[in-house]
């Protein structure tokens, strides 16, 4: 079992996203996160998809994705050097002595406090999945009010790219 990050370009058309997600459920493929938005070319969407599976299953996943009519191109980012990032918005209870403590933790993790109320903060943080997980874990559990994560998006290092 290995974690793979698939990056793909697809037609920015109604139904394209459902085609991808339906494929995963129809064939029983596991999907950990999925993150999608239009690119600089508005006719194309870029999707980053994270899945953990065996090599045989991964081969089927890429073949089946390529077979979808709307999918233009895809690559396995995890195959080479790459950068992956996820953004998290986390709302935490911040009262009394914890106000300072949480601010300090956020700074250590290079998070930004983007909303403040009498007893709470919203912290914005980017990083890879492990870093965000780690931050959630250092906040005492009863202080975490809400966690919103985008799912992983990624890009290859160097000149290698996924473009038309």
């Amino acid at each position, binding site marked *: 079992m290995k974690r793979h990050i698939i990056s793909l370009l*697809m037609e920015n058309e109604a*139904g394209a996203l*459902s085609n991808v997600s*339906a494929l995963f459920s*129809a064939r029983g493929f596991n999907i950990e996160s999925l993150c999608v938005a239009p690119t600089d070319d508005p006719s194309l969407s870029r999707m980053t998809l994270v899945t953990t599976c065996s090599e*045989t299953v991964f081969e089927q996943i890429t073949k089946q994705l390529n077979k979808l*009519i709307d999918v233009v191109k895809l690559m396995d980012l995890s195959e080479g050097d790459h950068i992956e990032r996820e953004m998290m918005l986390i709302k935490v209870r911040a009262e009394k002595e914890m106000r300072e403590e949480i601010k300090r933790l956020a700074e250590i993790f290079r998070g930004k406090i983007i909303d403040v109320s009498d007893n709470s903060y919203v912290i914005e943080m980017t990083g890879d999945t492990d870093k965000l997980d780690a931050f959630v874990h250092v906040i005492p559990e009863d202080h975490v009010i809400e966690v919103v994560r985008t799912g992983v998006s990624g890009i290859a290092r160097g000149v290698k790219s996924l473009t*038309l």
Partner: protein
Amino acid sequence: MELSGAEIVVQALKDEGVEIIFGYPGGSVLHIYDALFQQDDIHHVLVRHEQGATHAADGYARSTGKPGVVLVTSGPGATNAITGIATAHLDSIPMVVLTGQVPSALIGTDAFQEVDTTGISRPCSKHTFLVKRVEDLAETMRKAFYIATTGRPGPVVVDIPKDITDPTVKIPYEYPRNLKMRSYSPVKKGHLGQIKKAVELIYNAKRPIIYSGGGVVIDNASGSLIDLARELGIPVTSTLMGLGAYPASDSQFLGMLGMHGNYEANMAMHEADVLIAIGARFDDRVTGHIAHFCPQAKIIHIDIDPSSISKNVRVDIPIVGSVKDVLNDMLRIIRESGREIDNDGLTSWWERIEAWRGLGCLCYEQSDEVIKPQFAIETLYKVTGGDLYLTSDVGQHQMFAAQFYKFDKPRRWINSGGLGTMGFGLPAAMGVQMAHPDKPVACVTGEASILMCIQELATCKQHGLPIKIMLMNNGYMGMVRQWQEMFYEGRYSHSYVDALPDFVELTKSFGHVGMRVTKPSDLEAAMQEAFDRKDELVFLDIVIDPTENVYPMIKAGKGHHEMAMSPALKQGDQR
């Protein structure tokens, strides 16, 4: 040219060269029906149930290679069509299904006769479109036909909201002939390096076998397959879907393989050292228990769909490309090399195969009293001289037909293999007969299957389709009964087909000829009469042995070399 959306649909069909469509009207397609009414080029066949429309279009496609076209209304029209769409999808049949949809403004409001057609059909079709603007209609039609017929073919659904076909809104029309899609470009040519590797492997083989499938039929590559097999002098076996691509009466043909395949074919698979899989997808009905599959063989796999390759069985030399292109390249390389194949090795391989063949695995116990289904198919073969388009329903009769009717040409054997859809046979035969008005067309069926689309007898009457229906009436869902006998200690739970109609009278009430035959000695004459009545549909109710089972058989969890043989074999060949 300025056309309305409804007229664009019809004109696009003409531009695609469509001559026949199968359909059923309803609210959301009325504009299209009105446009159809005002022209004569496209012939519309009114079916009696939308499932029938899809199977008929499918039969048309299978027997011609051209895409089948269906037109149905929204909601129940579309859901009724789903079974036929899924049937075509599993067997890779090119089809374009036009479904009406509620007006765009009402989508998502649970409007009258609204269902999410693209959502429902997505997992059982090659692609789906929902047309959003009338300006996109012509291009969407072109894309639908292009996608349906190229690469690995399949059904494409085009969902058209009613407002898109509004007869009062006219726009300029031009059919986009040179369509290019950046996201879809199926390959045809195989990788030459891979093909050369395959040829090398074949030359070094001692016990090679060709395992050919539906892809050979789909690609009209029968000629190339025959050339290659003859050039190499090696045995050929075929899946249920590939039957006819290699002539069954040829001595190099070992018959069908798989669950109800021939003993010699399965044994040869088990012992082979090189397997050449051509347009076949290693279905579980073919492989038996995967762990026992071709234990000694290096595998070459030619398929146009990369996802078919190494899906169920890992292969050694994958070749992505169309059967015809790859086989022709292969043949050229072989001929140019001028090398000889190892004939001594092949001779001893053929000796072993002949020994397996000598067993006569299809033998059955003949009877003077009751008609055996195997005998019925043999008689059908005799009466038709092997020259027949034969559709089938699903069950024992399907297997008997596959085993006993010797198809020498492709596109003659029309059956639902992947989905195994009961009800397929009769409507499929309508499509075949429409495509080949002057050719004999028969449908072999069971009393359970035929009742699933029996209403189409009315369509046959309206359109004068002289199909010959060969009902193998055993009073049971025979295939189910067989499994209950073998695996559930004879507890025949709900597999007895009670309260059957009198099929002869039923057929007559539809205005056709109905006949019944119960004695083996009367069978040939009855079939002969059926085929002599060239212009009439004849429904032959053939009362057969209710207890006959299909043999040989690979039971669950077993390998190719562990077939259960017919009890008749033990008593000596009584054929």
